[in-house]
């Protein structure tokens, strides 16, 4: 029995329930927020160490043996993702202590944050496809409520698009699960993989693969299904944006990785070819969208889309090196992107605006913030020796080795354009003098030292993570390599869950 598989789900659920009980006490809710996310981080690290040492961990919930009950499965990819959930959860919880207003805290910001983390962790750890749907919904409901916290006009407009497209995606997912059950008569992912392998009729399997691809593609914000993301991610309070940017789309990417390595890997010439061109267009459209924007968070939102393309490219190339690159990229991206959103929040707090033309002179007044931004921004663009360089390098090298030259060229070009967007933010917000025009200038707000420390600490922490990954990539490389090996050998997953060697039924 391995309790550490269930703990990353139970701790946020419990913390969320506890902060609901302490609805009236703001101090208690804040303490629980930090304690709960720290607990999540610690248990998830424990889980990752166990998985790394002893291989895939499985827990049959309620003692029902697979495939009849629900299995919780932690392989390396899942465990890595849960650790990242803990890291981002803790960083955002600390940041929200200072940045989330009292009004939002009174409307249940912290319980919803815990619920969201529970949904995300559950999605990473479940081994049952219908259970995955349920965790998606847990996550979605929490994210809906977080998105409209404050009920301002842009939030409402963004939320309608976000809710509609995510619900359509959920329905597609549900329909695909139903059809899959009709074909193979099981919901356990390992069992599905085993039974599909012995199925004759692959035409219907391709149809199902495409349905899953579209459903998860909407969640992951892949081309041409990403339009809900730039319409909504810049509207909520910045801590919420950072949480969403770090985790939500990556759940979609994780689901794509899981489903297209474990279940639908029979005809990579068809499905993975589509994924590959989807990835290329995702990269390109995201980065071009960002080039047209002049608002801090909107630029960052479009860059989420373009970065998703790199991860999916890693999956689509489907070689050990490419999958390794995809996993490495996910880790790098979650840390860096959350950090950039948090920095945009600090800048907004200091200057009162996200619009680039109203900003300026941050470097002169707060050089430390400018350095932190530079570390994350250059890492996003892929400058050595930061984490983004290695992530891009591995994916592009995998592309060259797989002789997918067109896609690789696009990936290189997108890297350059990312640098263009980041220099645009740097020039406008940090380097140029503050605007003289009275109409444009927003009076600088007084920010207390304590607040600044609370908001600065997670940003510094995440920037250090980026630097450490960049300077010492070996550890993460080895971990990503092992997880890629696991993903490309689905029979090990099947054997761990079902307890019998994969292959025939």
């Amino acid at each position, binding site marked *: 029995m391995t309790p550490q598989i269930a703990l990353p789900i139970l701790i946020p659920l419990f913390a969320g329930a506890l902060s609901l009980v302490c609805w009236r006490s703001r101090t208690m809710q804040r303490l629980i927020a930090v304690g709960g996310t720290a607990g999540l981080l610690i248990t998830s690290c424990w889980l990752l160490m166990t998985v790394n040492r002893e291989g895939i961990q499985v827990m049959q919930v309620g003692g029902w043996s697979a495939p009849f009950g629900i299995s919780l499965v932690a392989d390396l990819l899942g465990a890595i993702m849960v650790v990242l959930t803990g890291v981002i959860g803790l960083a955002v919880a600390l940041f929200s202590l200072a940045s989330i207003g009292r009004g939002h805290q009174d409307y249940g910001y912290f319980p919803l944050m815990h619920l969201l983390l529970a949904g995300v962790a559950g999605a990473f750890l479940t081994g049952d496809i*219908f259970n995955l749907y*349920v965790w998606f*919904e847990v996550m*979605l*409901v929490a994210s*809906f*409520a977080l998105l*409209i916290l404050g*009920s*301002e*006009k*842009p939030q*409402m*407009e*963004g*939320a*309608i*698009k976000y*809710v*509609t497209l995510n*619900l*359509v995606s*959920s*329905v597609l997912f*549900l*329909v695909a*699960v*139903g*059809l899959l*059950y*009709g074909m193979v*008569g099981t*919901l356990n992912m390992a069992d599905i993989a085993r039974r599909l392998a012995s199925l004759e009729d692959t035409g219907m399997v391709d149809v199902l693969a495409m349905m899953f691809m579209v459903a998860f593609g909407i969640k992951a914000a892949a081309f041409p299904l990403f*339009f809900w993301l*730039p*319409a*909504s991610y*810049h*509207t909520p309070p910045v801590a919420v944006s950072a949480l969403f940017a770090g985790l939500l789309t990556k759940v979609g990417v994780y689901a794509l990785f899981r489903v297209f390595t474990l279940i639908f890997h029979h005809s990579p010439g068809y499905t993975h070819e589509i994924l590959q061109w989807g990835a290329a267009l995702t990269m390109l459209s995201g980065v071009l969208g960002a080039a047209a924007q002049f608002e801090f968070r909107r630029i960052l939102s479009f860059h989420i889309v373009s970065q998703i393309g790199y991860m999916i490219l890693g999956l689509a190339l489907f070689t050990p090196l490419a999958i390794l690159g995809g996993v490495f990229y996910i880790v790098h991206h979650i840390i860096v992107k959350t950090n950039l959103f948090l920095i945009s929040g600090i800048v907004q707090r200091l200057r009162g605006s996200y619009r680039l033309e109203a900003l300026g002179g941050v470097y002169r007044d707060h050089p430390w913030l400018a350095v932190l931004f530079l570390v994350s921004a250059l890492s996003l663009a892929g400058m050595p020796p930061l984490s983004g360089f290695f992530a891009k390098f591995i994916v592009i090298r995998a592309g060259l080795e797989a002789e997918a030259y067109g896609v690789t060229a696009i990936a290189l070009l997108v890297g350059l354009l990312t640098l263009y967007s980041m220099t645009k933010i740097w020039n406008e917000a940090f380097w140029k003098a503050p605007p003289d025009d009275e109409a444009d200038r927003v009076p600088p707000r007084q920010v207390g030292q304590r607040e600044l420390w609370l908001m600065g600490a997670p940003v510094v922490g995440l920037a250090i993570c980026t630097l450490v990954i960049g300077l010492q990539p070996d550890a993460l490389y080895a971990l990503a390599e092992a997880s890629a090996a696991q993903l490309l050998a689905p029979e090990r997953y099947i054997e761990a869950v079902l307890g019998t060697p994969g292959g025939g039924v």
Partner: protein
Amino acid sequence: MESLMAVSIGVLFATAIYMMLRRSIVKLVIGLMLLSNAANLLIFTTAGMRRGAPPLVPEGLGAPTSAVADPLPQALVLTAIVIAFGVLSFAVVLVRRAWEVVRADDLDQMKDTDT
């Protein structure tokens, strides 16, 4: 029976998509409701329809003696109904709040955040 179900699921999906393509956000929510119902009916149908064969195990035996209806899809549909109910009630409240804030029932007047 299956063909009747198939046709009605198809009609439900088509109606849902038609409603969602309208500009009114109230119609959008109605479309979402129809969509989730269509999905539920589809799960119910794909698992196979069988009349008068409850999944009961006779006393003293370990397994049912003849083919029985599969109870699992019904459990799935039940879960999906509950989830859809929660999510759609959120959507209804959202539409109401959006109307209060934006003062419009028209998606064309809600595109400030798009560009």
